[in-house]
């Protein structure tokens, strides 16, 4: 990966400027572009929009570089490459859903945070589908998303839910930002941030406000035989499913109900309900679109470079408060909303902050 402060697509634009007063900059950009470097094709696209004043604006934005492979029901990676960027639809639903989901997640990261792919440097987005036989899972293996087809009895498949795809990709973003150890509270934070990004990516795709959103993760991945809407709910952890086979959604929404277990890396998919709900409460208090304010605070926290990979809930809560204060000011309603949310889920003690609890 070519690491450069000024991205090549920007250099190309500067180099193309004709106005004489910019000739020096254009020359510099041209010589920078001409300098030998690793060959990497740069993808960009033209976006046209009409602003409030009715002016047509055109901007170039970076574009995703996707690659979907088919494991052909083996548990081997990466599998056979079946669709690359700009290739037409394959007709294989899982392949095409994964492709579209990668694109929607890419668009979300760029529009919300100006992040160019998972690594922020336009890195390729890779996914493998049809992994294993009746394989009941979707995961991130450090370099690609991997999707089983589900068993058809409990799970109908995973590629149909954008929240699942964005969740898996978010693990890549978290890893790129220094990671959160996948065990105990830091692991539950890793899971929670992946859910938060998963929920926001879907809301962005559907252009939903916080009031319109379902706040569900994995809606539609269960078969009709299962009694449940989804796997997890940020709005009401513990209510996503209640089924004879699967049991009841075990997620807590408050520290009083924190689950101590040896399973699931110390309950990373269980206790993530607590920070998930804190994000939901913050987003609801601030209103509008989740990624425009609450999401910015969470994203800045993740990317600040100061979050420890072994952070617990309290450390993360304090980091979100610091991020909110840096972004919006100490006495801002944003800081108050974040503090009230963490207080309500029992992570920050009541007396710790001003009495702004909702």
């Amino acid at each position, binding site marked *: 990966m070519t690491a450069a402060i000024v991205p090549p697509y920007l250099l190309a634009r500067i180099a193309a400027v004709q106005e004489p007063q910019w000739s020096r900059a254009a020359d510099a950009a041209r010589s920078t572009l001409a300098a030998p470097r690793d060959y990497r094709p740069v993808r960009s696209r033209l976006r046209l929009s009409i602003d409030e004043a009715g002016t047509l604006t055109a901007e170039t934005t970076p574009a995703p570089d996707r690659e979907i492979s088919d494991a052909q029901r083996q*548990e081997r990676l990466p599998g056979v490459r079946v669709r690359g960027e700009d290739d037409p639809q394959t007709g294989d639903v899982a392949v095409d859903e994964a492709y579209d989901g990668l694109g929607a997640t890419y668009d979300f990261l760029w529009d919300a945070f100006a992040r160019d792919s998972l690594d922020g440097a336009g890195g390729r987005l890779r996914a493998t589908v049809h992994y294993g036989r009746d394989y*009941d*899972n*979707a*995961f*991130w*293996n*450090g370099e690609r998303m991997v999707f089983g087809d589900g068993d058809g*009895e*409990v*799970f109908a498949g*995973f590629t149909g839910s954008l929240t*699942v795809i964005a*969740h*898996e990709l978010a*693990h890549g973003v978290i890893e790129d930002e220094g990671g959160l*150890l*996948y*065990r105990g509270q830091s692991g539950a934070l*890793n*899971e929670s941030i*992946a859910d938060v990004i998963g929920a926001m990516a879907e809301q962005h795709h559907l252009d939903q406000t916080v009031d319109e959103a379902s706040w569900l993760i*994995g809606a539609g991945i269960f078969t009709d*035989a299962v009694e449940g809407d989804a*796997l997890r709910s940020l709005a009401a952890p513990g209510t996503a499913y209640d089924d*004879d*086979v*699967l*049991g*009841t959604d*075990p997620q807590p929404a408050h520290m009083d109900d924190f689950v101590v277990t*040896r*399973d*699931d*890396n110390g309950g*990373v*998919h*269980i206790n993530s309900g607590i920070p998930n709900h804190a994000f939901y409460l913050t987003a609801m208090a601030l209103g509008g679109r989740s990624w425009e304010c609450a999401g910015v605070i969470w994203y800045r926290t993740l990317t600040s470079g100061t979050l420890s990979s072994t952070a617990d809930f309290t450390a993360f809560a304090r980091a979100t408060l610091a991020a909110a204060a840096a972004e919006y000011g100490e006495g801002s309603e944003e800081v108050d909303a974040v503090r009230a949310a963490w207080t309500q889920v029992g992570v920050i003690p009541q007396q710790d902050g001003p009495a702004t609890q909702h």
Partner: protein
Amino acid sequence: MDPRPSTDDAPRPDEPRRDDPARVEPARSELTPGGRPPRDRRPDATPAPDAPVAVDVERTGGFAGISRRWSAQPPPDEADEWIALIDRCPWDAASAPPDDTQPDTFTWCIRAHRKGAPEREAELPDDEVTGAWRELIDAVREWNRATGRTAPRPR
């Protein structure tokens, strides 16, 4: 190892005996007549007094974070086959999954009991479930499916 609830240590009264013809009924599909799959069963690690061998498999983690359990207590005439399969697994080479587990992957816990031998246990990340481990896990799941035995899971 987590202490097991004492209720799990005793054979269940509704459990068919090994010589019970009901045990070798034609295989039932995973879906019961009501159209619902059976509940997962809690691992019943301790075999009934006359059972020569028992294997329990527990899968935790995964994107859904939902644990599933399977158990096999094959009848005496199948015991040699099962013991051979158990012995082919590299129990001593299995190490606990590392702390930096890849997100959303499964973890497998396998326990084997043999009459008159100490319990064997291994915990494996999903990508190490290959070869003999894969055969053993598939055999336990298949045994579960074929016998269609169900037991309520504690809620």
